């Protein structure tokens, strides 16, 4: 473990990735201080105006909106929208900061649950073999034969809007890869002498899987999982972009990009007028994914000695 961390820090690509991740973690942890929430639900993005049209960075809060907040008895904490406002007057800066928390939550929760389901399914299939294996693996094949984004889109549409629904959809169609990997490595390990010895001693099946097989096979799955966090966040953002993800006004990077969709081209003769509406959400998503990819890529190289110095 120590050796791996040392290597991750020595490789310049993964060092950049780790630093970026650290920045994102700090943003997520200190979100309440960087962008103090106005509403009881901190993920609700405050609006700086009633305008449909986005406003450039540095725009002050409108008098209308100030009046609304004051009459609600809320202090106006932000006088200016540092990154501008998106379609509907939503504060882009606030959306970015709290969207970081959303991104981590979506990435970690979906990957954790997918890994859990994959491990349970994969290890049961490999350990018991026979018709159980056949059944579970065919089930995996069938789930794999629906394109991931399409499947997630359908399930989210049916379950209804909301981030929890998005996560359920991503988990329901995201566990198959892990199941296959864990099955493969358990099939290799289960004939080892120490497993047979444990069986001969009468150790229960569940104990053998949990305490003898999994500790020796789980590592490749964890690497794969860390590499998938970025892509899960992108898929969730894509669903929000398509309009079936987070509810309106929820701090979510994908939604911020979808706000920018209608404004990307700008008025005739003033191309790029609304660049900020897509630039800030875009840069956050790209850097987030890039950091996971850089770390994951190096991690894979370190653990797969065949590729050392090549990729």
């Amino acid at each position, binding site marked *: 473990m120590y050796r791996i961390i040392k290597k991750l820090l020595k490789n310049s690509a993964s060092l950049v990735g780790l630093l970026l991740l650290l920045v994102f973690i700090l943003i997520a942890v200190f979100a309440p201080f960087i962008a103090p929430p106005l509403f009881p639900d901190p993920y609700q993005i405050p609006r700086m105006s009633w305008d449909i049209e986005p406003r450039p960075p540095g725009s002050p809060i409108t008098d209308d909106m100030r009046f609304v907040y004051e009459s609600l008895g809320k202090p106006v904490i932000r006088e200016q929208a540092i990154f501008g406002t998106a379609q509907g007057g939503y504060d882009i800066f606030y959306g970015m900061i709290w969207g970081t928390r959303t991104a981590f939550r979506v990435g970690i929760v979906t990957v954790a649950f997918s890994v859990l389901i994959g491990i349970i399914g994969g290890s049961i299939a490999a350990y018991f073999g026979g018709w159980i294996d056949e059944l579970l693996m065919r089930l995996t094949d069938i789930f794999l*034969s629906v394109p991931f984004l399409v499947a997630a*889109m359908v399930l989210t549409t049916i379950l209804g809007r909301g981030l929890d629904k998005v996560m359920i959809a991503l988990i329901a169609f995201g566990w198959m890869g892990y199941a296959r990997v864990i099955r493969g490595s358990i099939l290799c390990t289960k004939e080892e002498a120490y497993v047979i010895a444990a069986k001969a001693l009468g150790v229960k099946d569940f104990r053998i899987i949990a305490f003898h097989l999994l500790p020796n096979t789980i590592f490749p799955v964890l690497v794969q999982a860390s590499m998938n966090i970025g892509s899960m966040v992108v898929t969730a953002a894509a669903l929000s972009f398509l309009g079936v993800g987070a509810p309106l006004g929820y701090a979510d990077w994908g939604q911020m990009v979808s706000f920018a969709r209608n404004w990307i081209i700008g008025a005739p003769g003033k191309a790029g007028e609304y660049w900020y509406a897509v630039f800030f959400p875009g840069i956050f998503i790209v850097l987030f994914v890039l950091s996971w990819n850089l770390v994951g890529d190096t991690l894979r190289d370190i653990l797969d000695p065949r590729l050392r110095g090549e990729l």
Partner: protein
Amino acid sequence: MLSYIIRRLLILPLILLGVTFVIFSLFSLLSPMEKLATYINNPTVLKNPQAAQKLIQKYHLDDPFPAGYFYWLKSLLKLDFGWSPTANQPVWEAIKQRFPATVELVFYSIIPVILVGIWLGVISSVHHNDILDQTIRVTAIIGWSLPTFIFGLLVLFIFYGILGWLPPGRLSTWAQYIVYTGDSFKHYTHFITFDALLNGRLDIFWDAVKHLIGPIITLSYISWAYLLRITRSSMLDTLRKDYIRTARAKGVEENKVIYQHARKNALIPVVTVAGMMIVEMLGGVVITETVFTYPGLGFWAASSAQQLDYGSVIGFALLFAFMMVIGNLIVDISYALIDPRVRLE
């Protein structure tokens, strides 16, 4: 070889049945009323509880899971996918109408992926670790990290917003007028580019191409980056093999070594990733078409999803799942054709 293909074809119906099972499970999460909404084209019926109850029984929407699945499959076989309020026509008609546009887009996206991805991958491996290789690699990693919807917006922003070259949609208004009204423009294939050439209308052909370039780039860049990486590492692996050293020692020209001896064998693992590229593209179609308002299946599916038009979304998912199963079958068979070792499994 033949027995391998027959074996694969025999499993095909089972997989397709499994896919319908998964999608019906999703469908059965809806309440009978919501299910009914996917079958009728006149929403006022839903306000009359008795009429609605009758229709629910007629379509077997309240039946237990196995019976409901049976009747649902039966209606699928009759190509009855329900009614699409988004398209204001039956789902099957909506699919048929939009299918050619999507196929045209995917068709043109696959060709550059294969050519450019493999070409760059080979170059990258031959110039291992020098500046050209590093540039190609870094570009690929950045491309890999750019989500499709952001990349697409970027393309639209630069090439339409600023430069005005690549407009969104499928055709300009004047071309639409010629293509869809009157009888002067014959639809032979429903691929606008082919039809325009067959009709001898170069101006419409050029207009269609301009509308296609942006979506093609957006749909295919991730697959480029992916294919490039795989080709590169597989080439590097092959170039170190003994038979390559032998060829070089015999005095075979370097170009011949790379393009005739090494590339052929290096391309075998590349075929395996084709399956993964199909997944990437079918998902990418939805986003790409939405970004460019390209009137294909993906755009329609995304708008249906936003309007909770369940029937359309389910029909779309079925179609895409079937396309993916068939695509994977083709990949597997061509893999077996290229690499004899696969058949022995």
